[in-house]
């Protein structure tokens, strides 16, 4: 085992309490392998929306960790998540990204599975196997756990995983603001997919609470009038904001009523679907959960963006930053809307979202460019001084964090303009999930993880 890697995790663990994080966490190869094993083989991950597979036979293929899974709706209408791997010799049984089919036939030797995963056809079965092959034991391997919440499909490869509801916990109170304010379900557009040269943690670290990057990174947005004083988005940067850390997520609320920009019928729908406390936050107190990160790699945003000089629309986006290597990430990006808002509104919102935070978006492109450069510049070893740490030290002193007594939502709530507290909260979650970080020599059990995994089993699948 190389010492390079333990150095990164050890340094990370040693410095975290002081807000010092080695930049190497964005490109260290052994750390990446550990993340694959401890996070992407064990934690709940968002894979797509139920609306993407609305009819029996609909399927999409999605990555979970370094494996491909078929996310499909079987003939009974149930969601199934199946490893895209023939049980015979490991050939992927599905070689496109989306479609509709009642069965998957392996192109190598012809084993055929129905969309519940059952092996229903083996060519020349009698002469090839006689009685030696029991099809019941050769079904496509289902993911150990999956569940849905408000139209979002989550999967977890760990058979001992806690239920999704427990994992999300109180954080659901905030998720409602993104996907839970509808009776009829969601319009879902996407995903678009793009590959960026950055580490998957980079984007989450930003989105959970880095208001501080706004004035500089997105200065062109202010200069062109897309955001700023004349808009509802970041109208006054010095305004009071709420930072919230809650269960597996962390977010920022902006001083903009969530219901603003919605037609009255949609407001009624929203009202019916939220609690009195949530409504008070959206309407009376005038907050919107603006940017939000859900461990390990989901980004959710509610924004108000222009489609024309004098027309703004509320938009909701969900993105996953899927690791494709230590410094390579695939970005999946969806735009969603309450069906009650109407197709026309949804199309406008999709256009506004595409223009701002899509793969060609005027905001996200600057984020992506900068995150790529940070990922790249952290590559070591090499020349330079001893300081390889990122300083996430802002508002480290708890005295500066004030609770907001009037806010009814769960979690740790504090009103502050700029803070790196949520970033530290997020990275703490990553560190906790990684355990003691002793990859090769593991087996002795991880130290006091908060997670529900009771064993120190290190096998990857």
């Amino acid at each position, binding site marked *: 085992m190389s010492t390079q890697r333990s150095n990164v995790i050890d340094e990370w663990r040693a410095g975290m309490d002081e807000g010092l994080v080695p930049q190497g966490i964005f490109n260290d190869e052994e750390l990446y392998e550990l993340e694959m094993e401890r996070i992407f083989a064990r934690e709940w991950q968002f894979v797509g929306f139920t609306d993407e597979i609305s009819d029996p036979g609909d399927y999409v293929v999605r990555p979970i960790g370094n494996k491909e899974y078929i996310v499909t709706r079987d003939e009974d209408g149930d969601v199934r998540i199946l490893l895209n791997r023939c049980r015979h010799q490991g050939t992927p049984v599905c070689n*496109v*990204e*989306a*479609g509709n089919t009642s069965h998957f036939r392996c192109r190598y030797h012809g084993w055929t599975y129905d969309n519940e995963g059952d092996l229903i056809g083996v060519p020349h079965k009698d002469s090839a196997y006689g009685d030696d092959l029991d099809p019941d034991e050769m079904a496509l391997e289902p993911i150990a756990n999956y569940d849905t919440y408000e139209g979002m499909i989550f999967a977890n490869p760990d058979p001992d995983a806690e239920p999704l509801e427990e994992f999300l916990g109180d954080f659901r109170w905030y998720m409602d603001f993104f996907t839970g304010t509808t009776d009829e379900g969601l319009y879902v*557009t*996407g*995903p*678009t*997919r*793009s*590959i*960026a*040269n*950055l580490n998957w943690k980079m984007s989450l670290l930003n989105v959970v609470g880095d208001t501080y990057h706004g004035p*500089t*990174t997105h*200065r*062109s*947005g202010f*200069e*062109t009038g*897309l955001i700023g004083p004349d808009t509802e988005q970041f109208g006054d940067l010095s305004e009071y904001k709420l930072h919230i850390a809650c269960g597996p997520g962390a977010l920022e609320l902006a001083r903009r009523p969530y219901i603003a920009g919605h037609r009255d019928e949609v407001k009624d729908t929203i009202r019916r679907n939220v609690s009195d406390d949530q409504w008070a936050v959206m309407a009376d107190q005038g907050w919107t959960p603006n940017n939000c990160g859900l461990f390990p790699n989901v980004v959710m945003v509610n924004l108000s963006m*222009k*489609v*024309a*000089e004098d027309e703004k629309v509320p938009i909701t986006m969900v993105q996953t930053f899927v690791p494709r290597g230590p410094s390579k990430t*695939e*970005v999946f990006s*969806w*735009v969603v809307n309450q069906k009650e808002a109407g197709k026309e509104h949804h*199309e406008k919102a*999709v*256009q506004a979202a*595409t*223009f701002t935070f*899509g*793969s*060609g*978006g*005027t905001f*996200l*492109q*600057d984020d*992506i*460019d*900068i995150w*790529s450069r940070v990922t790249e510049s952290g590559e070591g070893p090499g020349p330079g001084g001893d300081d390889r740490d990122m300083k996430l030290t802002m508002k480290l002193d708890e005295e500066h964090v004030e609770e907001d007594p009037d806010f009814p939502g769960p979690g740790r709530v504090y009103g502050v303009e700029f803070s790196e507290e949520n970033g530290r909260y997020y990275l703490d979650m990553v560190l906790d999930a990684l355990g003691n970080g002793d990859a090769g020599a593991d087996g002795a059990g991880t130290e006091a993880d908060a997670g529900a995994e009771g064993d120190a089993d290190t096998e990857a699948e």
Partner: protein
Amino acid sequence: MAQRETDADAAGAAGDGADVERYHEARRFLYEEAEKIDDREFDAWLEMMTEDIRYRIPARQTRSEGGKGEFRGDAHHVDDNRFMLETRVERLETEHAWAEQPRSRTRHFVSNVRVVEASDAEMEVKSNLLLHINRGDDPESHRISGERQDVLRKVDGAWKLDDRTVYLDHATLPLGKISVFI
């Protein structure tokens, strides 16, 4: 630049003189437009668009039917109206469009121009696009390819781009971001 407007064979176009002329007009328009992008003359480029311009790059999904059947969804990498294109150009003219600081070096190769339908007022034109992008001191370049389907419209005696859809050959965008005009 002089165009050999009567050389129908060299142009690869068939039919009468009017067809040949339109083919040349379409080709001249597309070359000039590509030059404006690659030379970063974006204000002049915008002048080649109508007020109603819609500029789309739809997202593609690998599907068994292949071809245009892979563009079934309504997701886009780019779906711009005039306001959005103007804002992009305005943004690039600030000093803080970081994704284009330093500037990407683009080279648009536009070929296989086909005039699908044409009248004196409107032309539907297909062409192939190969876009080469290099930036900074990175020895690696990005290549994007696709088919453009354009509608050109005559406005005050000049052809303008009224509608463009770029059907990319990529399901997963090989770029982290689109910061250039495709």
